[in-house]
């Protein structure tokens, strides 16, 4: 009984407040449009490509890119993890000091046609953090990919060229 009374009350309130609610949403939309238009770098209304749609690569695809040397690899783990062993030719952009590392490889990133990021394993977050950071730094999302298996899987593949040591 109390619930039905409560529901009735909520429905009455919703009926009464809907017009104001719509007005508030319209007001917010107008401000959003004007604000975006006046920003120094307005955001495009239509997205070119959805990064969530095809950002993840399978092991087979990654192995093919390693063999053909057709992509630039970014190791998003910490510098100490990178020094212990990484994919030969991969650059290190540690997620905790990404600003510092980014300036070193900015040119290579801009020139690359495909960039593949990896971190420790499928549970790590560093790859996604660096992925997001690179987008905000003007690297096109369409050429960024993530390998979710991470170094844990790559390391276990016998054909993967490995290198030990810090980034020069």
């Amino acid at each position, binding site marked *: 009984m109390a619930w039905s009374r409560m529901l009735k009350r909520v429905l009455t*309130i919703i009926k009464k407040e809907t017009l104001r609610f719509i007005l*508030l949403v319209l007001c917010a*939309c107008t401000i959003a449009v004007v604000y975006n238009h006046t920003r120094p770098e307005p955001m*495009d*209304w239509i997205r070119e490509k959805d990064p*969530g749609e095809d950002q993840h690569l399978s092991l087979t695809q990654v192995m093919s890119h390693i063999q053909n040397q057709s992509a630039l690899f970014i190791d998003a783990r910490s510098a100490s993890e990178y020094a212990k062993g990484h994919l030969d030719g991969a650059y290190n952009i540690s997620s905790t000091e990404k600003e510092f590392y980014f300036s070193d490889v900015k040119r290579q990133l801009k020139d690359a046609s495909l960039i593949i990021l990896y971190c420790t394993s499928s549970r790590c977050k560093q790859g996604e953090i660096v992925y997001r950071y690179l987008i905000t730094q003007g690297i096109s999302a369409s050429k960024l990919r993530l390998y979710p298996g991470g170094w844990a899987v790559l390391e276990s593949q016998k054909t993967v060229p490995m290198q030990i040591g810090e980034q020069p």
Partner: protein
Amino acid sequence: MKPFLANKYTQLLIATCLAIVFILAALLKIKNPSSFAFDLAQYQLFPFWAINPMAIIIPWVEFIFGFMIFFGAWRRSAALGMAVMSLIFMSAIGSALLRGLDFDCGCFGGQSLYAGMDTLIMDMLIAGGTLVLICVTPKPFHSKDTSHVIRTN
């Protein structure tokens, strides 16, 4: 419980907390809409053409609701809006959890708050707070409530 929730100071406290959360979340997203667009895409729920318009508009809707609640204007309408938004957020996070997706929820503009049970609970608390503002009419704390007085004559 109801007299406590109807107390104007309780309502003021709830309204202020909700307003701060919404305004803060909105400002962080407004500052970096591309990061928020990335988070929205990670949910894999929305068509790609809708991502950018959503990333541009949603933060301002949040801001307006927070602003109205804070200044007490059209409070019920704004609370209704917040309730609708928190329900949408809860559904999105719940669906991501069910599908086993693991990513930043985008709640505070890329502040590394992962879509999980804690963000779901946070949204539930927000929804609860908005329901209080919608359903319970505020009354002054010192209003004379004589319902508990037993009549002797």
